[in-house]
């Protein structure tokens, strides 16, 4: 007897504990890995370039920004490409998780109404598959760093896994919340894509974070949670230093808050998924 989901289980109008929810996820490891694989490989099945499409879109995006900001505008920053890429890799993980993750509950409505499984595996799989893409992009970035002779700081790199962990928590919380909201209000998905379009410009990815002297702009930049995450990756790859303690604490606080809110919202809304979808 496999006895994974075994033991006595009681279901009432109220839900079980958050801890139980995560305990249950371990039974669904193979489902998560199947979903991640499907997301990465199956998505572009049938296209000639297939799997490579995961990277072509972000690559083109980076190249376009690079041309615009080095040829047309003249950046103050030396090694602008390194600066741009170190911000873009984390931004792409963040934005793709949000834009695709928000639709995942609705997209899998059919399955969700027919079989019981912990619903959170759906947005979680999206975030994980985008994380795999992120890691591959970071690996390619290392090649660039080595090839250009820009190099890395070993001390700063020791902090990279921690930074990735914090970012993972933050992105998960946000994606859980959006995917659940989208089940009730289909506009969420479209609002997210519009929002992301504007969001990238209020995040210091293409320009350096500093005080601009315009109260509105400065306020927005400091209120934007992504500012701190992008700064963390700038520190590691571009400035080659261990990220400042205030940046790290800010990211930790944001990640913890988003995860708590994300899980609370998800669990509250998930009760009726099978009925509203």
């Amino acid at each position, binding site marked *: 007897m496999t006895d994974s989901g*075994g033991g006595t289980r009681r*279901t009432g109008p109220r839900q079980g504990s958050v801890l139980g929810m995560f305990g249950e996820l371990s039974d669904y490891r193979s489902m998560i890995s199947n979903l991640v694989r499907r997301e990465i490989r199956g998505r572009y099945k049938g296209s000639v370039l297939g799997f490579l499409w995961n990277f072509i879109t972000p690559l083109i995006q980076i190249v376009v920004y690079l041309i615009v900001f080095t040829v047309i505008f003249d950046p103050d920053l030396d090694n602008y490409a390194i600066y741009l890429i170190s911000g873009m890799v984390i931004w792409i993980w963040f934005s793709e998780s949000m834009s695709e993750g928000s639709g995942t509950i609705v997209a899998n409505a059919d399955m969700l109404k027919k079989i019981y499984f912990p619903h959170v595996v759906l947005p979680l799989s999206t975030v994980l598959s985008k994380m795999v893409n992120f890691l591959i992009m970071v690996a390619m970035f290392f090649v660039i760093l080595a090839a250009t002779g820009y190099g890395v700081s070993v001390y700063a790199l020791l902090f990279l896994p921690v930074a990735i962990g914090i970012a993972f928590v933050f992105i998960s919380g946000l994606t859980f919340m959006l995917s659940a909201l989208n089940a009730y209000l289909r506009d969420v998905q479209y609002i997210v894509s519009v929002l992301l379009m504007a969001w990238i410009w209020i995040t210091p990815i293409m320009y350096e974070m500093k005080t601009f002297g315009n109260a509105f702009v400065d306020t927005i930049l400091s209120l934007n949670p992504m500012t701190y995450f992008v700064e963390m990756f700038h520190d590691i790859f571009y400035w080659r230093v261990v990220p400042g303690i205030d940046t790290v604490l800010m990211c930790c606080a944001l990640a913890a808050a988003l995860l708590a809110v994300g899980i609370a919202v998800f669990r509250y809304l998930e009760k009726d998924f099978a009925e509203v979808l």
Partner: protein
Amino acid sequence: MDDPGNAIEVRRLCKRFNTHRRSNSLKDLVVYHERRDDTRVREVLHDVSFSVPKGGVLGIIGRNGSGKSTMLKLLTRILRPNEGTVETDGKIACLIELGAGFHPDMTGRENIYINASIFGIPKGVIDERFDDIVEFSGIGEFIDERIRNYSSGMYLRLAFSVAINVDADILLVDEILTVGDIQFQKKCMDRLKAFRDAGGTIVLVTHNIEQTTDICDNIIWLDDGRVREEGAAAEVCAHYKEAMLGPGAEGT
């Protein structure tokens, strides 16, 4: 659990559905917000209680729309009760909607893994069971073909094989023994009986009265969301038949 010998205990279960128009878009929410009070609540199950002992087979019968499938969905946790509780002891497998999560563009082999993973089965266990699943389905060499090319019978047979091979303690079966040809149906029935004889618990929803009396110990007759009668299979079935087909009753 009140009685540790029970595999399933359902107590005072109520399930209601809201039948108001759904607001899925921002426009609906903003424009029609005030009109959302036209919410009508439909009670699909009302104060249903029953229990199934370990190794027992319970049949649920009743006319269309009487709440049978909702009852099964509550047992699987797809739906959550509004009142009352469902307690289950052991791993549940459902033969409710066969082939959920099947991908037409993937092969039978790939789909076995994907489908079983949705039931929460680790990969190692699927590896062990793989040959049994293929063997039972009778799919043979087609296992490496994309299931897009399967006949509907093959598709259902594969789905049934996965579901019945997941090593559960409790099996929920909804109206699916009409799968495949007569030979496969018999195979399914034999498998269900073997499952029961090995100590497994089964809840079965069906319209096939002969089948019901053949395998079930007890029957619950649901009528309009309430338990109309509960008891030994032959007796309840006889009353049900009389009510459904007898003079003066609303026929089907």
